[in-house]
């Protein structure tokens, strides 16, 4: 047997690239850009005679954040539990619903138009109703976060499950695979990159949902604190809340991305290998 003449380029196992794929520069560039942004902001607000009521300097925001740390931590815990639970509910309902729509034609015909119609409703508009129904506590916020985040999960699950190459399904069936085995061995793993795409979008939307809910009516949470601080004309605290919220959203996003890297390694690695082959 001749050795494969077409093996050029894959002579060794490629090394796993660092997260973000591309060496030091992938951390350096965004870090420098961020630093420049904050430096300009700091200088402009300090020497540009900008009222602290309008735009406080980053250093002041940081000071306020540190000074109010216990309060911000408490409020963060409330908001985080709202969007995490809302997101979890979205995933727990969205993924099976997507699968059901793919597998059961009547369900698709009955539910899909409703789903699209529901998605076109601005969730902020129904937030007050949900609060009337469920009270000003955490439940109404979880539900708003859920309502705003579950649609991309459903849609991406549907797209992912439908994107399997027909040949792979034929192949599994020619090996005697049951419909469940086709799902488990072919359709579901194939859908995972799409599902994670949906989950990542949903994770940022869930944060928005929780804040919208808190804006409408609440007695705790970061959204609530923003309203209180704004009422007190405490712009620095408002910005501190925004900072904390940004960090919360980022951490949440990166947790999901870390899960993606664990479960869909084959896909992420393939993408990285392609990007390094074309770039660098």
């Amino acid at each position, binding site marked *: 047997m001749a050795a494969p003449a077409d093996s050029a380029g*894959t002579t060794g196992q490629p090394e796993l690239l660092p997260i973000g794929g591309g060496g030091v520069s992938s951390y350096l560039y965004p870090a420098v850009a961020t630093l420049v942004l904050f430096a300009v902001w700091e200088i402009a607000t300090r020497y540009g005679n900008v009222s602290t009521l309008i735009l406080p300097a980053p250093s002041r925001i940081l000071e306020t954040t540190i000074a109010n740390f216990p309060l911000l931590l408490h409020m963060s815990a409330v908001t985080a539990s709202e969007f995490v639970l809302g997101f979890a509910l979205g995933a727990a309902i969205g993924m099976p619903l997507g699968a059901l729509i793919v597998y059961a034609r009547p369900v698709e015909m009955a539910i899909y138009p409703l789903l699209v119609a529901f998605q076109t409703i601005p969730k902020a508009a129904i937030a007050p109703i949900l609060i009337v129904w469920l009270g000003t506590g955490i439940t109404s916020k979880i539900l708003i976060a859920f309502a705003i985040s579950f649609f991309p999960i459903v849609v991406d699950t549907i797209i992912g499950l439908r994107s399997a190459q027909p*040949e792979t399904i*034929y*192949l599994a069936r*020619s090996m005697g695979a049951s419909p469940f085995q086709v799902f488990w061995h*072919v359709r579901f793993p*194939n859908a995972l990159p799409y599902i994670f795409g949906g989950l990542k979008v949903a994770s940022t939307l869930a944060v928005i949902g929780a804040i919208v809910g808190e804006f409408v009516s609440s007695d705790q949470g970061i959204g609530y604190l923003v309203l209180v601080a704004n009422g007190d004309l405490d712009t620095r605290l408002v910005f501190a809340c925004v900072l904390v919220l940004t960090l919360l959203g980022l951490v949440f996003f990166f947790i999901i991305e870390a899960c993606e890297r664990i479960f869909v390694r084959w*896909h992420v690695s393939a993408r990285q290998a392609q990007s390094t082959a074309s770039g660098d």
Partner: protein
Amino acid sequence: MQAAKLIDIRTVQGADEPFVRIQNVDKSYVSRRRSLKAVDNVSLDIRPGEFVSIVGPSGCGKSTLMMMVSGLIPTTGGTIAIENKRITRPYIDVGVVFQRDALLEWRTVLANVLLQMDIRRLDRAKYKPVAIELLKRAGLDGFENYYPWELSGGMRQRVALCRALIGNPPLLLMDEPFGALDALTREQMNLDLQRIWLENRKTVLFITHSISEAVFLSDRVLVMSPRPGRIAADLRIDLPRPRRFSMREQPSFGRYVAQIRGQFQAFGLLNED
């Protein structure tokens, strides 16, 4: 060697008994009140151990015919039987290879070859040495733990071939398996396939566009007409084996190719002026 032991466990059958019997098979697709006939009254017997190719223009229903033989899609009319058993659902004692390799990207090369064992709940450990031996003979020694995206197109298709061979099925169904490969890789794959076939003489139904590939590999070449697909010619290829590329320059090889090309010209598919 373990692999050698698994090969040729098939009992020798009566030489006249067809392995695959296709009788008056039709296939029509109905869409929006329009009916499209893809395969029209095809009858065909394939003997055990025979290498049969079907050539024909695009859309002539040759892939459809193969899919019906595998039981993956139903016939509209007529019957297909393998070893005298009528095919009504997917026939699982078969190795299928498509033009696209259909490797599962999330499985390593080895796990792709062993997919069948997972689906049939067979003992993976028992088949692992067989898979490694198959991969080795396909020139993929040491690539067991690679992922498909790390391989070239030719290597991927070799993995797909190993996957089809793992259960040592008596029948191979191949739908333009080398159609997506570059010319050089394709020639190598032709040689490799012939070698594998000579080692254990499986029954092969091979679909291709390439006239010379069909003549080179086959005991018999069937020419299918444009849609609705019928069998227009059935040629026995009497060339000694193992066949070598140099044989393609011989007059006998050229005559077979010319005969088949003549069929295509008769369909009005090839016009020289």
